[in-house]
C-alpha cells in the first residue's frame, strides 16, 4: 500500500510541459513524447518534488469540489507513473 506521505519526484529522464500545439500536458524524453490526458496532466502539474500525496489531493479537491473519488484516481495514476518510471517516490 502506498503511503500518503510519499513525495512524488519527476525522474530526471523526463521533462513535463504544456504543449500549445497538442493542447495538453506532455512528458518529453530522449526522442519521444507521452501525451497526457486531462487528469494525468493536472496531477503531474502538481508534482514539484516537495508536495506529498495528501497535499496534491488537497489541492485537487479545492479545485474540483464536485469530483468523486479523487483520492483513488490520484493513487491509481501515481501507481501507474511509478510503474512507468516517470516518477519515483520519496518518503
Amino acid at each position, binding site marked *: 500500500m502506498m503511503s500518503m506521505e510519499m513525495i512524488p519526484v519527476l525522474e*530526471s*529522464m523526463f*521533462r513535463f*510541459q504544456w*504543449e500549445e*500545439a*497538442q493542447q495538453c500536458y*506532455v512528458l*518529453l*524524453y*530522449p*526522442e*519521444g*513524447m507521452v501525451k497526457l490526458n486531462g487528469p494525468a496532466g493536472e496531477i503531474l502539474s502538481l508534482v514539484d518534488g516537495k508536495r506529498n500525496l495528501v497535499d496534491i489531493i488537497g489541492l485537487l479537491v479545492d479545485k474540483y469540489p464536485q469530483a468523486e473519488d479523487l483520492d483513488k484516481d490520484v493513487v491509481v495514476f501515481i501507481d501507474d507513473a511509478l510503474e512507468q*518510471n516517470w516518477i519515483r517516490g520519496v518518503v
Partner: protein
Amino acid sequence: MSGSCQGKPSSLPETPTHGQPLWLLAELTYKCPLQCPYCSNPKDFADFTEELTTEEWIKVFEEGRKLGAVQLGFSGGEPLVRQDLSRLIHEARKLGYYTNLITSGVGLNERKVAEFRDAGLDHIQVSFQASDESVNNMLAGSQKAFQQKLKMAREVKAQGYPMVLNFVTHRHNIDQIDRIIELCVELEADYVELATCQYYGWAYENRQQLMPTRAQLERAERITNEYRAKLAAAGNPIKLIFVTPDYYEERPKGCMNGWGQVFLTVTPDGQALPCHSARMLPIEFPNVREHSLDHIWNESFGFNHFRGYEWMKEPCRSCDEKEKDFGGCRCQAYMMTGDAHNTDPVCSKSSHHDIILNARAEAEKPAAEPFLYRNERNSRVFCKG
C-alpha cells in the same frame, strides 16, 4: 480541409490532411572527423558547403515550434564541429524544444558537456561502432575514437544527462551483441539502440560488406531478448531497442510514419526534407533560405508529393495494407527500381522483390570488397559540380 488551401484555385487538388512536424532534425554540418562506411549522409555531401548561419538556424527553430515541433535533434555530420552549438541549444531550449545532441563523442570534452548543460541541453546520444576497440576504430577510420567515446559516455552520465547509446549493427559487429549490451549496461545507458544498418547513402554502396545473414540476425535478436528478460528481472530500467532490417521482411516498413507526417529534416545548406535520405530523389525540395517552414510543410510540392495514396501505382494502389505501410520507402523504391512511385522492393508483392532476395543471397557470401569510407575525397567521386 486544412486552412492552408484557402485562396487556391479550386481546380488544384487540396492539400491532403497531414500531421505536425513533431520531430525536427537539424543536420548542422556534413563535416565529420569519422568515416563510417554506413553513414546516411548523401554520397555527394562534399558538393554542399554553404552552411546555414546561426541566425538562419534560429529562424528555422522558431518556425518549427510554431508548427508544433517539439523534439529537436542536433545532428550532422558531427554537430560538435559547429562553433555556435551552445548558442543554438540555448535558443532551442528557450523555445520549449526537448533538445537532443546526436554525436560520435569525438570533439567532446568535460567542459563542453557542462557548457551544453548550462545552455539547456536535455539529452546526449553517443554512437559507437562496436564493443571492441579495434573493430570500432577500423569502422570509424580513427585510432582514438573508441577510448574517447568511452570517456565521454561516462562524462555524460556523470553530469546527470539521460543517455542513449547507439550501435549500428552489421555483419562485422552483430555477433558481439552480448558484449555490446554489457558495455551499455556498464556505461549506465538509459536507452540502447541496436540499429541494424539501413542501406541508404554510404551504407548502400557498402551493403554487401555490411549486411548480416539471416542466421546472424536471428541470433542477435534472441540474445537481445534474453538480456531484456535478465535485466528486467534484476530491476535494471535500461531499455534495449532492436531495430530489424527491412531486407529480411516480406512487407515494407511504414517509412517515417508516412511521407511528411511527423518528421522534418533540414540539411546543413538549408534544404528541407521529409526524411534524411530524400535528398537523393529526383524531386525539388524547398530551401529554408527561400521559404518559411509553414509553406514548406503545408504547401510545397516536395512535401505533398507522396502524401495520401493518389500517387501510388499497383500493387500498392489496390492493396489493403497501404494504410499500414504507405507503400514502404520512397528512397528505397527509387534506388532499386529507378522510380520513386514504385512499391518498395522489400514487399513480396513487388515485381522487383528479386533485388532483395539477391541481396539476402549475397549476404551469405563472405564480404569481399574493401569498405568505401565516408570522407570528402570519396564523396567527390559522387559530386555533380
